[in-house]
């Protein structure tokens, strides 16, 4: 029995090994989040540039950064969140961009760049997808709701409202509610925000960043704090849900495309980034991710129901008060400490 199996297995191994190396073609290695790009756009890019795009996936900015800091190489394009891109640039892990190779930069939303972006001049990064952290509620079970972060304290939702399990999101909501900047480095303001979250903690069901989607869908939770794109995906299936964009302002998070300093295929990497900034391709990607690409002209190309959707294009008034989460350097320790105290308080 064994005698027959072993040669067969070896033959299988050999064929697999051989099939792994096909004809030589330029390969672009992209390191990104899973399900974050439209496969059709990728196929069209591969065809146009006669190349192969290889995707690898990470699930956390911090783990990805740790891996690259240890010296891992081979990736050409990476899609980290803005505040991590900033760290990567300061550490010279990514290159300053040559704008001559990115003609489609002209499509990037000027308003977004000047008001929200960290890298305002697209010096080292090009914004890919933008999301906000907001609230969603069940219209049937909650006919009227106050448009404010104060809902966390409303006894009507006691035990049936969740808050994101993320120090910057939770404390950020409190900072906005109190009228401060969510990137505040002032210990007194952070202290007040901490007390606010501790007070909210008495009323909420739990801090959660993963299963709130299932919870709001099944009716277990009445109100949830979550990311716009994720909530939009739930909403497509469940028409009873509605958005709430607190009037005090929200947190904005953006994932950016960057080119690594170890990339051996810089020209192809530039071409890839440039391709994604084309309004048509940006619109196609938005339909998959349900997040907003800050690309002018993409909105008009979206299906009607997405064009005016508050999650894709929130009310400009609410957006005016919103802010991007920034890397705070040393002040980050204040947030870590405050968050620990929130988690361990009764």
């Amino acid at each position, binding site marked *: 029995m064994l005698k027959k199996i072993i040669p067969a297995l070896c033959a299988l191994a050999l064929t697999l090994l051989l099939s792994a190396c096909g004809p030589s073609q330029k390969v672009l290695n992209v390191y990104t989040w899973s399900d974050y790009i439209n496969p059709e756009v990728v196929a069209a890019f591969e065809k146009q540039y006669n190349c192969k795009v290889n995707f690898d996936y990470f699930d956390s900015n911090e783990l990805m950064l740790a891996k690259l800091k240890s010296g891992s190489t*081979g990736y050409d394009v990476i899609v980290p969140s803005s505040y991590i891109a900033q760290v990567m640039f300061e550490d010279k892990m990514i290159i300053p961009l040559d704008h001559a190779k990115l003609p489609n930069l002209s499509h990037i939303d000027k308003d977004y760049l000047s008001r929200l972006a960290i890298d305002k001049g697209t010096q080292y990064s090009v914004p890919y997808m933008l999301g906000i952290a907001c609230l969603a509620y069940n219209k049937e079970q909650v006919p009227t709701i106050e448009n404010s972060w104060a809902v966390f304290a409303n006894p009507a939702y006691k035990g049936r409202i969740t808050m994101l399990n993320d120090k910057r999101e939770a404390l950020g909501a409190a900072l906005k509610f109190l009228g401060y900047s969510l990137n505040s480095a002032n210990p007194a303001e952070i202290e007040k925000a901490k007390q606010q979250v501790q007070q909210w903690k008495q009323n909420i069901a739990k801090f959660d960043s993963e299963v709130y989607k*299932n919870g709001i869908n099944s009716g277990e939770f009445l109100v949830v704090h979550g990311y716009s794109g994720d909530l939009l995906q*739930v909403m497509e299936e469940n028409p009873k849900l509605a958005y709430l964009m607190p009037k005090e302002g929200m947190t904005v998070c953006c994932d950016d495309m960057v080119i690594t300093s170890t990339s051996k295929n810089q020209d192809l990497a530039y071409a890839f980034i440039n391709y994604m900034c084309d309004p048509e391709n940006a619109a196609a990607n938005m339909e998959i991710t349900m997040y907003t690409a800050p690309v002018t002209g993409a909105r008009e190309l979206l299906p009607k129901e997405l064009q005016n959707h508050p999650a894709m294009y929130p009310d400009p008034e609410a957006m005016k008060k919103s802010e991007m989460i920034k890397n705070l350097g040393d002040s980050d320790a204040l947030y870590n400490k405050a968050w620990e105290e929130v988690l361990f308080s009764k």
Partner: protein
Amino acid sequence: MVLAFMYLPMLSLIVQSFNESKYGGKWMGFSLKWYQALFHDKAVIDATLNTLWVAFMATIVSVILGTGAAWALNRFQSRMQQINYTLFSAPLMVPDLLMGISLLLLFVNLGVSLGLTTVILAHITFCVSFVTFTVLARLQDFDFTLIQAARDLGAGNWKIFRKIVLPLIAPGIVAGALMAFTLSMDDFVVTFFVGGPGSTTLPVKVYSMIKHGAPAIINALSVVFMAMTLTIALAGQFLMRKKY
């Protein structure tokens, strides 16, 4: 009671994977659409092939090395053996994270380009120990007078190994191989760190899918994965029963 805790989550996963709803929680009708989506997702298929390839290679190499190591640990007695024994058991106790980062640093310093090869090498390092100890357990009950008897009857070393030793320790080898295979298939932390372009395996992909992907596809994927593991385990048992 304990069994219920072990199996109920799996049962609910299987049920949910056939749910029409993308987010579960509510039953919206029986559907195979997540399985369909799964089999059309090129990224998932690539990751599955990577996973199987890595697990397969890591199992073969670690079975050969591990059996040899177990034999050596069992047969030769010297003061060095205690040290060897400890060295072999160390990977069982080292945390994954430490192993992942240290292997990554090693590969980077050696100038090895990261990819499937480094993932396979890393998996071999932790699989070998498991194989060694399962085979060693088997060897400890091994009756070595059988070998002397065979030699008396004129059998050569190779013949003894093939006809006597191998069949007797085969259950240990198969058990070790199955363990190596499942460990390799499951591993996330080590793979994440030592992997390079084009080496995304299923666990790495699934973790990333939790962020933006549809939970229902992950459910379907897990069910397929469970079915695969079960088949391998059953196949192993079947092979072992046939011998005796």
